[in-house]
């Protein structure tokens, strides 16, 4: 369905088109005329790429740490977090809306995995990793990430008690 854009959105389209596609000398001239420091912009962009690559490497590590939990370790982690195994499975399959996970729970899970919270949150927001052939037996479904549910709904679907849900959804303590 095509939604008609507002005049301001059309203006933004045109501005971005100019920035992306104008000949190099024109874009540089425009930026110089508006007081931009081109060398500084280039340096900051490179830092952004470097930080993104670094963050991605950490997120990948967090995703793999979660995916590679052995059944025995899954049981321990689920016990330590006071959740059912099915909840942990959903987390391993990246089937949870990350923004709906209370920060305290995310921090506890990150701690169990020995990963940083931000890295785990980033990892969970992407697709679940494919099985690492030969390294561990994965029960992760390849397309599982397409359907995501809020954390609280996941807890209810796992038939956890109201008291347990309330405790897990609490961000304090």
């Amino acid at each position, binding site marked *: 369905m095509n939604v008609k*854009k507002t*005049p*301001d959105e*059309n*203006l*933004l*389209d*045109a*501005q*971005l*088109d*100019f*920035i*992306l*596609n*104008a000949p*190099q000398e*024109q*874009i*540089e*001239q*425009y*930026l110089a*005329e*508006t007081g*931009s420091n*081109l060398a500084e*912009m*280039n340096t*900051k*962009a*490179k*830092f*952004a*790429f*470097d*930080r*993104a*690559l670094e*963050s*991605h490497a950490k*997120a*990948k590590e967090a995703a793999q740490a979660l995916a590679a939990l052995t059944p025995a370790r899954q049981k321990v982690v689920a016990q330590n977090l006071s959740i059912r195994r099915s909840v942990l499975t959903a987390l391993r399959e990246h089937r949870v*809306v*990350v*923004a*709906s*996970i*209370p*920060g305290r729970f*995310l921090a506890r899970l990150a701690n169990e995995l020995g990963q940083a*919270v*931000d890295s785990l*949150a*980033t990892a969970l*927001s*992407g*697709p679940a990793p494919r099985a690492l052939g030969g390294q561990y037996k994965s029960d992760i479904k390849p397309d599982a990430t397409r359907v*995501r549910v*809020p954390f609280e709904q996941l807890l209810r679907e796992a038939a956890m008690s109201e008291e347990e849900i309330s405790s897990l959804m609490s961000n304090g303590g």
Partner: protein
Amino acid sequence: MLTEENLDEPVLPDDVLATDEEIAIAVVHARSDTGNNIRLMAAARLLLDRSKQLKRVCQPEDLLQDAIEAVLIGRRKWKTNRVDFKGLLVGVMRSLVSSRDNSIKAKSPGEMMEHELHLVGEDQDSQNLEEFYADAQTTEEIVLRKEQEAIEESQMDILCSQYEPASLHGRILEKLREGFSSHAEVYEALGVEESVYRNAWKALMRAATRMNERSKE
């Protein structure tokens, strides 16, 4: 429900998705391309300047970083038949600004997850939510923000008011009101030379930038 996880557009049967390897190569190439970097930063700055809330807590380089991360982690798919890598990153930045602006606007501090605002680079001190909202709730801030929102909401009107409707600048803006697909289409529809149009457009870009600068002061 609007989260960053829902940003991706549906994949159509004819879409060609980039592999992880292709994305990694594109990232390395993009990083080493100075011209590309300048354009990406200019786009990030423009998008943030046009945001309602996000510009208060995010720098252009942080927005760019988050867009690159979203593509690397697979939260945003790169449909190579539709867009080049630079265009993809700009599209992701635009989606991020829109969703985060709406998210900040819609939620009260109690409902906001702190990690949803982790836009500031890891090596910088991020402003936590309490500080952000406490800061935003002063009377002066509220008045300024409302004035700023009024300016942002009618950027086209303000820009139009600076030019005679019959002038080339005024005619360009009037044409843009109807829609935009390419600059070539605009100057052809107006019957003007490309070089004449380009000069007029650069003047409009500068005027819009000055407007954004004033709204930040």
